[in-house]
């Protein structure tokens, strides 16, 4: 029997010990009329060999493409050691580290992770992860409202990831929180700080600042941060952790720095995998730590005064506080954080910086190349990190289709998210793209676009 070790003899002895005649008898407290569990639509079992063949066939059907889609999920090289260690049974098959003495491996790793993320974001403290970037933003909004106390209004620019905004609205909808969308400048692709004042006349709990924003454009984070702080509001930074190897970390934005930094941790060693599992990260200023949701690891000592690690500040959490918890979150994305911590350790500060810098340089290279094609030009004038929007001279769906036929996923059509941005392509490059890849994209796109001249 797959994964069940019992021999017939075992079963007999066990039933004898219980004093039951059959296994079925052990279900005698379930009312007979409820025993309707017969599974008619679950197919018969397969051997490992059979399922292996099936999954290989399905994987091959999906194939490989030269991918230029980013939009919140980024293809970076992941050193082999990352997942070899991460999937060791001791990490893979352990539970949330409630028994600290039997979980020092996971606990120490999470403490190292918190240290790395606090430094990367320039904040004081980090939690041990949330589900993903989108839900991390929603948790940050709830946290800001708890901290602010008098306002339940959150300002979110239209340049923030459209799906993040949807998730934010879905989660805070039932808690009387108002999400106010603030406009951006279509020319630069940024929020213009001077245009914010109408939105600041009424009190608000927090301003969300994406960096880079959904268009790949860099926002004027210092001015935005200072503006929100002047209104006695919090600043929630939504950042790509990879970009922070190059860009000013949220903790250093403006005069006082952002208050909460969240984002999608996927670029740090997590494969694209059709969207998950990824992990959300959250870091904040020290004074906000008791409002933070999720697991937090603290350093302490044992009875012999030897250093060790435990889950701490559990009085915030659902299993202690029940209906008064900061969030209902408990288990979230531990294994992904394991991978991210090993990834950051293998890359180190210089490695991470080089990955970020090469991703950025590749974008400049690609945009320069594609802009030589007649009719192709950047949609926005703002500076970019590793992603940019390009206007195309023809119907985008048809063009993407033609690119795909040649093995290239050319990027994301922005039309579905911003109706005004018709025939606009969001392209992304990471360090994984070689000069040959960039040339190929340019050549193939150039040929496809000839017919739209």
């Amino acid at each position, binding site marked *: 029997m797959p994964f069940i070790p019992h021999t017939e003899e075992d079963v007999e002895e066990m039933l004898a010990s219980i004093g039951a005649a059959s296994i079925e008898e052990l279900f005698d407290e379930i009312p007979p009329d409820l025993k309707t569990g017969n599974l008619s639509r*679950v197919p018969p079992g397969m051997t490992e060999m059979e399922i292996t063949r099936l999954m290989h066939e399905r994987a091959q059907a999906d194939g490989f493409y030269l991918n230029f889609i980013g939009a919140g999920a980024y293809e970076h090289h992941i050193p082999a050691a990352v997942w070899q260690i991460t999937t060791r049974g001791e990490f893979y098959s352990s539970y949330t580290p409630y028994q600290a003495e039997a979980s020092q491996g996971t606990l120490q790793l999470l403490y190292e992770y918190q240290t790395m993320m606090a430094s990367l974001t320039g904040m004081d403290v980090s939690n041990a992860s949330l589900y993903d970037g989108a839900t991390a933003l929603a948790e940050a909004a709830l946290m800001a409202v708890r901290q602010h106390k008098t306002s339940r209004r959150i300002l979110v620019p239209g340049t923030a990831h459209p799906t993040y905004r949807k998730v934010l609205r879905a989660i805070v909808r039932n808690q009387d929180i108002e999400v106010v969308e603030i406009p951006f400048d279509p020319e630069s692709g940024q929020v213009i700080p001077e245009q914010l004042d109408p939105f600041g006349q009424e009190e608000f709990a927090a301003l969300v600042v994406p960096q880079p924003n959904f268009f790949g454009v860099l926002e004027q984070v210092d001015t935005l941060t200072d503006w929100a702080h002047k209104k006695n509001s919090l600043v929630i930074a939504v950042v790509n952790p990879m970009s922070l190897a190059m860009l000013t970390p949220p903790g250093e934005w403006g005069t006082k720095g952002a208050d909460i930094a969240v984002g999608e941790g996927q670029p740090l060693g997590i494969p694209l995998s059709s969207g998950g599992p990824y992990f959300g990260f959250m870091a904040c200023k020290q004074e906000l730590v008791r409002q933070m949701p999720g697991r937090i690891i603290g350093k302490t000592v044992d009875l012999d005064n030897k250093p060790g690690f435990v889950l701490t500040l559990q009085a915030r959490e659902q299993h202690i506080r029940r209906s008064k918890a900061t969030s209902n979150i408990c288990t979230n994305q531990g294994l992904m954080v394991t991978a991210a911590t090993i990834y950051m350790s293998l890359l*180190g500060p210089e490695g991470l910086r080089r990955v970020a810098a090469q991703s950025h340089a590749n974008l400049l290279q690609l945009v320069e190349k594609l802009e030589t094609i007649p009719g192709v030009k950047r949609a926005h004038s703002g*500076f970019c990190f590793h992603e940019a929007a390009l206007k195309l001279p023809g119907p985008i769906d048809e063009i993407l289709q033609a690119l795909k036929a040649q093995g290239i996923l050319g990027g994301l059509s922005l039309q579905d998210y911003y109706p005004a941005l018709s025939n606009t392509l969001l392209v992304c490059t990471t360090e994984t793209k070689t000069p040959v890849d960039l040339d190929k994209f340019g050549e193939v796109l150039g040929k496809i676009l000839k017919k739209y001249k």
Partner: protein
Amino acid sequence: MLIFEHSRPGRRNYSQSPTTPAEKQAIPQNLLRKSPVLLPEVSEMDAVRHYTRLSQKNFSIDTEFYPLGSCTMKYNPRACNALAMLPQFLARHPLAPEDTGQGFLACMYELQEILKDVTGMAGVSLTPMAGAQGELIGVMMIRAYHEARGDKKRTEIIVPDAAHGTNPATAVMCGYKVVEITTDKEGNVDMDALKAAVGPQTAGLMLTNPSTLGVFEKNISEMSRIVHEAGGLLYYDGANLNAVLGKVKPGDMGFDVIHINLHKTFSTPHGGGGPGAAPVGVAERLLPYLPIPMVAHEKGVYRWLTEEDVPQTIGRLSAHMGNAGVLLRAYIYVRLLGAEGMNRISQYATLNANYLMAELRKAGFEIAYPTRRASHEFIVTLKEIKERTGVTAMNLAKRLLDKGYHAPTTYFPILIPECLLIEPAETESKQTLDAFVTAMKEILQEIEDQPDMVKSAPHNMPLRKLDDVRAARELDLAWKPQ
């Protein structure tokens, strides 16, 4: 030693990032990072050795018996991991066109269909990323249902006092007031308390069945009638589905909405605290509110369902479609086991739990509900031992670590004093259970002979008992260079 303490300035892994510095850069000075990033500078071998050694400080299913009640720590088949990590699956971008993901989407569609059958529900959405998020989504749908009917007076969610802490925390996140109801002497929901709590203000009842007390709620059909007659809906917390898989379908018990913890029943790894996955299933009347995306199969083609297909959806609750890779592992697991294997799960999980309960009772332990069958788990209480010797459930738990067993769940459910919630799962052999009973007997003897030694356990672990109070009082959440 922390990874940072292995660090030496200038040490790098040249093969793992671009070998030459990038040539082009166009970012204004004021947006560029000036402060260094505190990451270790170590060799590949340093990192591999460090994290391998850290892993060895963990207990895990792969290394120890892990009878953690309510968590279903069963064996995680390696094939599920290996096949979910085929390179094409890993490389697929979530926003890649549907026709480049038909293999993946086929797995997701079939998983939806299988989960419908397993739960007896009319529709399933795979998007929730953990049990707590499944709950949140489930209660959001309950709220959306009442609101769509213009029924705005329903402000309360009823939760038994034995429920997981996530239940009340979730209800509050959805803007509901929580009404806790008590449990009777036999471990069932107190029906009088339920009747008293239910009314026109009731939005729903959240229930785990079998309950967290390890017993089947025999009165479930009556409870369902009471709640439904008052216009409320029934929420099934699928944490304990392992106990009734292939026996009872939550839909047939009258539940309107359910979440299924795939990281429990469908054996996806717990990963030291996630990622999980908790698809939600709903009865007919909640179908319009399911979260997107879901997968449809039309004319031989798989595609995502979006807002256009499900206009009343409660929306999107993750950036893409939840923990896709976890869902793949669950799919592979269910295909390996098939219908017959699913049936066996509940049978052998129940056999193991009842056997272990019988043996521990014979060994002298007090069972919290001795007249009841165990579901897939059961509760031992140390109330009498604590009163007599001062040894607590936590002391015993720590002593079990010394003997090479992960501790059962302690102090949950909170209504049983000094409790151990024990769930052996179907993948453990009789021999493992017997060895565990032997260890428990030894501890029982140690409690009599040397209670102070038990109270100061663990003794054989890398560290002795850790100071939680100091951790919370003198917060140290990140390493600082000396």
